C-alpha cells in the first residue's frame, strides 16, 4: 500500500469554498439550542433532587458551545455519534426535551422505551446511536459508519466525541488508527473539560495536549477555545467539509471546564474554587448573549422572549413526560433480537 506522504500535501492544499461563519439567523438558532441545552439540564437536576429521576443525572454545563455548535455544523446526511455531555447536539439533531425527560423518568415515550438510562439516548428514527457507559467504546462504531459511507460512495461525514479521560482508553487508539489508515470521513471532537470525574489531566496523560497525539495516527488536528460558539462552529464546519471532500479525518480539541460534578451526586470538592470562578467568566452562554447584543443580532427583549419560550416548552414537556406511561413488566424480555425486515438501517 502506498505510504501516506500524499495526504499531508493534499490537506494543506485544500481550501474551503467559503468562510465558515454563522449567519445572524444561524447565530440565533445556535443560541436557542445552547439555552435549551442548559435549561433542560437545570430542570433535570431539579427533578433528580426531588427523587423523580433515579439512577444518575448528568450535565454538560460549560460545554454548551461545543455540544451545540459542532452538531450544528453537520448536514442532515451526516452522522452524529455522541458521548455523554452532548444533549445540546441531540437537541440540534432533532431530539426534544420530551424525549430527554421521558428517558430520565423511565417512560415508554423515551426513544429507548426506558430500556436504557439518562444520556444513552439512542434514537433509531434520528439515526443517533445510543452510547454505552464504557468511554471510547463508540469510537470504532463511529469509524464503521464512516467506512460504510465511503463504501457506498456517500459524501456523508461522521462526527464523534470523546473526553480528556476517555481519550486514554484502548478503543480511542484503535479507532483513530483505523480512521487514519483507512482515511475515513471522521471528525473527532476531544472535549477537554479539565477533569475526568475527580481526576485532573495531570494524572490522566503525559503529553502536553491530547491533540499532540494526532500526528501519531497520521491525522491532523487543532486545539480551540470551546467556550466560543463561533470558533467552534467555524472550525468544525471546516473539518467536516474537508472530510467530505475526501481529505480524511480531523481532530479538534476544545477547551472548556466541567462546571458541575461528574454527575449530580458529585459535589466536586476536588476542583479548586478559583478554577471554577475563573471559568465562570468564560461561560459560553454569557459569551453568546454578549455577542448577540454587541453584534446587534438580538435585543435584550428578544433574548428574554426566547428564554421564556424555552422555559414554557420545558414545563410542557416535563408535564407530558410525567404523565406518560411506565413500561409494562412484560417488556423486559422484548427486543433482545432484531427481526429480518430491512427497516431501521441507517442507510434506508
Amino acid at each position: 500500500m502506498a505510504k501516506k506522504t500524499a495526504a499531508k500535501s493534499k490537506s494543506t492544499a485544500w481550501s474551503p469554498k467559503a468562510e465558515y461563519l454563522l449567519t445572524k439567523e444561524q447565530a440565533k438558532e445556535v443560541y436557542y439550542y445552547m439555552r435549551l441545552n442548559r435549561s433542560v439540564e437545570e430542570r433535570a437536576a431539579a427533578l433528580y433532587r426531588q427523587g423523580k429521576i433515579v439512577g444518575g443525572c448528568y450535565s454538560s454545563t460549560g460545554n454548551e458551545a461545543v455540544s451545540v455548535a459542532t452538531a450544528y455544523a453537520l448536514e442532515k446526511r451526516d452522522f452524529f455519534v455522541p458521548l455523554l455531555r452532548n444533549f445540546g447536539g441531540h437537541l440540534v439533531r432533532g431530539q426534544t426535551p420530551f424525549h430527554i425527560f421521558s428517558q430520565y423518568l423511565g417512560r415508554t415515550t423515551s426513544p429507548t422505551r426506558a430500556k436504557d438510562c439518562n444520556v444513552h439516548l439512542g434514537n433509531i428514527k434520528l439515526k443517533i446511536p445510543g452510547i454505552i457507559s464504557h468511554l471510547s467504546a463508540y469510537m470504532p462504531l463511529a469509524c464503521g459508519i464512516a467506512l460504510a459511507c465511503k463504501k457506498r460512495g456517500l459524501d456523508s461525514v461522521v462526527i464523534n466525541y470523546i473526553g480528556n479521560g476517555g481519550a486514554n482508553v484502548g478503543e480511542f487508539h484503535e479507532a483513530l488508527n483505523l480512521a487514519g489508515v483507512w482515511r475515513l470521513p471522521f471528525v473527532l471532537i476531544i472535549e477537554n473539560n479539565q477533569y475526568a470525574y475527580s481526576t485532573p489531566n495531570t494524572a490522566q496523560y503525559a503529553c502536553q495536549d491530547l491533540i499532540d497525539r494526532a500526528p501519531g495516527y497520521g491525522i491532523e488536528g487543532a486545539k480551540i477555545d470551546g467556550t466560543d460558539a463561533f470558533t467552534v462552529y467555524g472550525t468544525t464546519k471546516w473539518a467536516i467539509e474537508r472530510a467530505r471532500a475526501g481529505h480524511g479525518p480531523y481532530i479538534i480539541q476544545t477547551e472548556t471546564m466541567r462546571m458541575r460534578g461528574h454527575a449530580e451526586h458529585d459535589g466536586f470538592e476536588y476542583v479548586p474554587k478559583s478554577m471554577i470562578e475563573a471559568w465562570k467568566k468564560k461561560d459560553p452562554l454569557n459569551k453568546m448573549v454578549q455577542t448577540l447584543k454587541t453584534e446587534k443580532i438580538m435585543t435584550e427583549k428578544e433574548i428574554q422572549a426566547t428564554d421564556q419560550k424555552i422555559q414554557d416548552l420545558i414545563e410542557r414537556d416535563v408535564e407530558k413526560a410525567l404523565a406518560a406511561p411506565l413500561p409494562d413488566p412484560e417488556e423486559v424480555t422484548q427486543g433482545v433480537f432484531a427481526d429480518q425486515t430491512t427497516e431501521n438501517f441507517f442507510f434506508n
Partner: protein
Amino acid sequence: MAVKTYLEAITDGLRECLKADPDVFLMGEDIGVFGGAFKVTKGLFEEFGPERVMDTPISEAGFVGAGIGAALCGLRPVVEMQFSDFISCCFNQIVNVAATIHYRWGGKVPLTIRCPSGGGVRGGPFHSQSPEGWFMHTPGLYVVCPATPYDAKGLLVSSIRNNNPVLFFEHKWLYRRLKEDIPDGLYEVPLGVADIAREGTDVSVIAYGSCVAHALDAAEGLEKDGISIEVVDLRTLVPLDKEAILNTVKKTSRAVVAYEDHIVAGPGSEVCSILANEGFEYLDAPVERVAGLQTPIPYAPVLEDTYLPSPQKIAEAVRRVAAF
C-alpha cells in the same frame, strides 16, 4: 455438487455470499493478499478486490467495532478473528455494544464474526480456545458451531443473512479432516435446529463442533459392545434447540453431554440444566459431561490430549451411563 473439506465449504459460503450481496464484505488480519492464516479466504481478494476483502491492522476492538458501525448502516460485514482466542481483545465491543444495541434503541447489527476455534493442533493456551460459553451466556448474540462441511457452509449463509450479531465458531481441527459432497451455490441451514447425526436407542450423546466427530468415532466400538448411541449435533448454541434435547432423552433415557469449552459453566452445563429440569421424568441415569478440563489449555501434546475431550472419554462416559 462437489466434494469439499470443512474449510473449503466455508470459503465457498463466503464466495457465494460476496457474489450474491454487494453489502457483504470481509475484514480481518491477513485475509486479503495472504488468503488468511488458515487460507479460508484464499482467492477471494483476487476475485472481489480490496474493498470487499479488507486487510486490517491488528486492532480487534477497532475493526469489530467498525463492523458494528457498518452493520448499523445495513452493510453485512463478516469479520475474521485470526484465532478465536483473540476474541477477548474485542470482548467489550461484542458483549456491551453489539449484543445490546437492539434491546436498548432498536438498531440492527447484521455482523458475523468468524472464529477459528478449538484445540488439537498443539497451539498452546492462546491458539486453541473454545470461547463459545462466554457468548452463549451473553443475551443478544447468536452462537453457531458447525460440525460438518455441509453445515459449515449452510450455517454461514444463514449467519450472514441474519440481522443479529452472530459468532461463528469454525473448528480448526475439523478444517481439513472432514470432507463431504456439498451443493454448489447458495443454500441455508436454519439457525436453532439441531441435527441427528446418528440415530440410536440406548444413550444420547448431545454435542456440537468437534465433539460430534468424536462421538461418531466412538459409536462403532460402542455398537460392537451392544450400546447404541444417538448423536445429537446441536449446530447452534443460540438459538438452542431445546426440543431436540428433550426428544432424544425421551427416546433413550440416558445422556452424555460433550463439549470442548471448559467444563465449568460451559455450554453443555445449560443442556444438563434443561435435562434436570424439563427432562427429569425421562432420565434413568445421571447425566455426564465430557468437556475441556477446567485448566488453561496446555501445550505439550500429552498434556493437551489429556485436556481435550476424545472418542475414548465419550465412550467411557457412555458405558458408565449405560450401566447405571
